[in-house]
């Protein structure tokens, strides 16, 4: 590596940091004021890129066409963001935080398919910036002019935002609302337009970031999740609600990534270290380290005025006789199902059972534990890999692999959980995501052991369970037992202690409950259950690849739990079955299953703000509160 190489990478890293900052500052503003964790922020970024490329094509070449495309795309995305706030979020500000999250997931799904519909599945290359496509010479190294422009633009936008926030009346209101939303409302400020305005500004920044990336990065349908994850990392490392923190974090992440590229492969003391392999994971390692030592990020402070989950908490009832009767009936129906349906449906039913267990394990943390996990796929994947590796590399029989998977899930969950329970709320959720991404990238890059991106193939069940019907029965039995075990724990003293920590932390401490410890111990319980689900998944598919624990799987899990209703025990199980079945059902009819699912979720969110099971139960009971 020469100095010139390093310089080139640094410039590239800083240019990336600038767009990253634009993206993250929008997310930070929106969260700060509305307390909505907007998962669709990455989708808005993606729309910015697609929109700008499309506009640039239609507005003709030349600098004017290029820059008007950037500007119009950014404004268009701002308008879309405001519309999203008006049409969806405005109606559910009173709903539990997690429910707003579900609504933004729905928007992610809808936007992804809308982009697919409008621009097709192929990546689209954008034009280079007219007049800025050249390079300037720095230390004998050509530095792209456009990168220099971006590097300048980052601080300029930071300054502009600072001026907006500190010198204008509107900015003062935003800062006041970030500090104490209720107070601002009590002082007679019309929060309705404040929220819509902040959404427009934040979305516009995401759109601008996306549009500016057009010469540097092709528009692709995967940009949304990449962008939202990157933005979350920056916002969390910088400290929620702090623009300066986000700027610093974006810079640090950009530079560290650039250094990893620049170092490439280095021999240290006979060890070969491949730094470029680290680029996929380095930001998450950075985030985990930051949160472990500075729980509120570089410049953040503990959240104030965040909504309590109070009022959204449904009471856990001891199973009644009616419950057992229904459970027995369900067991009989599930047991005789193979006699009535074809193999295809049976495989689908097997999937439903596996994801029901996955969702139940996530619910264990989110419901009684009150801890949202954005990276729950990690334990699913660890279980899957533990089983797959044991079967392929060690030739272990299926039952051994199925027993080892929950153990592996539990051990990793114990390790990750130790760090996670030191944090709360969104910070905790982001740390779970960081761990999941670290595990994912290890699986992706450790070719010799995990098979890298190809994964492992040929992991088939033992002969006695190879038949589809037999495997179905095995899966149903194991999943049912595991879900029942989770529910038992929720009804046991441990589950009550866990809920106590969620309901009233100080009070729990005053009656001798070590809340952090209980929360920590709930991780391996959930991890074991998710691990078992992962192992069953491998044997049902016969193969596995790193995408068993991709972000999208974690998101699926969240949707399943929230769809069914996080306040109920049975909800997540039904939510998982419904989600899996719907996905399959729609996928068979149209390519645009996300669009339909997203719209369905939006309708559900707006009509059933307690999740399907929770709302149905309320309707059946007739308005009882």
């Amino acid at each position, binding site marked *: 590596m020469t100095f010139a190489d390093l310089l080139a990478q640094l410039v590239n890293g800083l240019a990336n940091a600038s767009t990253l900052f634009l993206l993250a500052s929008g997310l930070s503003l929106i969260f700060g004021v509305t307390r909505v964790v907007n998962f669709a922020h990455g989708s808005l970024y993606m729309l910015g890129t697609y929109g700008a490329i499309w506009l640039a094509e239609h507005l003709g070449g030349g600098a004017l066409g290029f820059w008007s495309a950037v500007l119009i795309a950014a404004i268009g995305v701002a308008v879309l963001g405001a519309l999203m706030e008006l049409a969806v979020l405005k109606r559910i500000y009173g709903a539990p935080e997690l429910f707003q999250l579900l609504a933004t997931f729905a928007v992610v799904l809808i936007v992804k398919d809308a982009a697919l519909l409008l621009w097709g599945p192929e990546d689209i290359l954008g034009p280079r910036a007219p007049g800025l496509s050249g390079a300037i010479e720095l230390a004998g190294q050509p530095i792209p002019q456009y990168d220099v422009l971006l590097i300048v633009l980052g601080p300029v936008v930071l300054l502009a935002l600072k001026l907006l926030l500190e010198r204008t009346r509107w900015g003062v209101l935003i800062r006041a609302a970030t500090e104490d939303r209720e107070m601002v409302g009590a002082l007679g400020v019309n929060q309705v337009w404040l929220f819509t305005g902040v959404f427009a500004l934040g979305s516009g920044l995401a759109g601008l970031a996306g549009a500016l990336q057009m010469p540097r990065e092709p528009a692709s349908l995967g940009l949304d999740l990449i962008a939202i994850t990157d933005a979350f990392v920056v916002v969390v490392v910088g400290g929620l609600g702090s623009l300066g923190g986000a700027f610093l974090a974006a810079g640090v992440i950009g530079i560290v990534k650039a250094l990893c590229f620049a170092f490439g492969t280095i021999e240290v003391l006979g060890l070969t270290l491949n730094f470029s392999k680290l680029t996929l994971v380095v930001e998450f390692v950075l985030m985990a380290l930051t949160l472990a030592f500075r729980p509120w990020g570089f410049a953040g402070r503990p959240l104030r005025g965040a909504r309590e989950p109070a009022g959204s908490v449904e009471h856990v009832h*001891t199973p009644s006789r009616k419950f057992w009767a229904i459970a027995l009936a369900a067991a009989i129906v599930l047991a005789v199902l193979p006699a009535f349906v074809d193999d295809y449906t049976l495989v689908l039913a097997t999937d439903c059972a596996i994801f029901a267990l996955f969702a139940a394990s996530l619910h264990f943390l989110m419901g009684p534990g009150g801890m949202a996990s954005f990276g729950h796929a990690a334990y699913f994947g660890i279980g899957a890999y533990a089983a797959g590796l044991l079967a392929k590399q060690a030739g272990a029989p299926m039952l051994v692999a199925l027993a080892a998977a929950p153990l592996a899930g539990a051990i990793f969950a114990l390790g990750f959980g130790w760090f996670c329970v030191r944090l709360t709320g969104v910070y905790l959720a982001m740390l779970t995501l960081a761990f999941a991404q670290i595990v994912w990238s290890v699986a992706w890059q450790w070719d010799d052991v995990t098979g890298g991106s190809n994964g492992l193939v040929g992991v088939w069940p033992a002969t006695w369970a190879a038949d589809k019907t037999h495997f179905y029965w095995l899966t149903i039995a194991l999943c049912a037992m595991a879900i029942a075990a989770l529910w038992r724990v929720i009804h046991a003293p441990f589950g009550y202690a866990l*809920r106590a920590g969620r309901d*009233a932390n100080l009070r729990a401490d*005053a009656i*001798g409950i070590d809340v952090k410890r209980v929360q920590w111990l709930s991780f391996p319980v959930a991890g074991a259950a998710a691990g078992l689900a992962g192992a069953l998944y491998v044997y049902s598919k016969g193969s596995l690849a790193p995408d068993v624990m991709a972000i999208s799987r974690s998101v699926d899990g969240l949707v399943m739990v929230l769809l069914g209703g996080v306040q109920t025990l049975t909800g997540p199980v039904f939510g998982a079955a419904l989600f899996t079945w719907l996905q399959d059902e729609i996928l068979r009819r149209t390519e645009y299953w996300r669009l339909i699912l997203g719209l369905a979720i939006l309708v559900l969110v707006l009509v059933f703000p307690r999740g399907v099971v929770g709302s149905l139960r309320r309707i059946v009971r007739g308005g009882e509160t």
Partner: protein
Amino acid sequence: MTLLTIDNIEKRYGGVHAVAGVSFSVAAGERVALIGPNGAGKTTCFNMIGGQIRPDAGRVGLNGEDVTGLPSRKLFRKGVGRTFQIAATFGSMTVLENVQLALLSHERKALRLLGEATSAAKDEAHELLAAVGLESQSDRPCDQLAYGDVKRLELAMALANAPRLLLMDEPTAGMAPRERHELMALVSRISAQRDLSVLFTEHDMDVVFGHADRIVVLDCGRLVAQGTQEEVRVDPEVKRIYLGDAA
């Protein structure tokens, strides 16, 4: 016999000496009120005793044992019950379940993965609810209780470890005058029955003079007077703090 000894505890926040060397003690079965004007350091002092804040200097002794800086979950094991200024109970559980969980925790069974929490320690839980007059509400979800009843429930939970000392931070805050006296009369009765010491902070002087055996007065982070009701009532320093120099 002395149960609780506060020996010269101190807390600084930056340049502010919130509590500057306060010492007093509480005898077994005694009800002591900690009073003082706003900003006197009552809450800081109280939280240092209750384990929410660690003192910068000084010592808190319980029955001769040094418990300085122990978190409140550990004080619970040593026989200290605690209620908060803003009463908080477990909203997703019934009144009975709240008490059952406190009892389970006292028996060190709260981390058990097996067994039904709702069938544990039922009789004792009902007894505690009867003692605070909440028996008729035992099956209600506790997020539906009136505030006065939440306070009673908190008291029942604080009694689950058969405490020798009860720490109550503004026990009657947010209650109507009649309810205040009912609650404090209940506390006095329980204290007498169980030989239970009570240390409480309070703004309402009627409550203080109606229910405290002894009164400790703080001002500007320092102890200015302590003694029986009569001694405190005639103390010139206390008069000055509460009534101003003209008095």
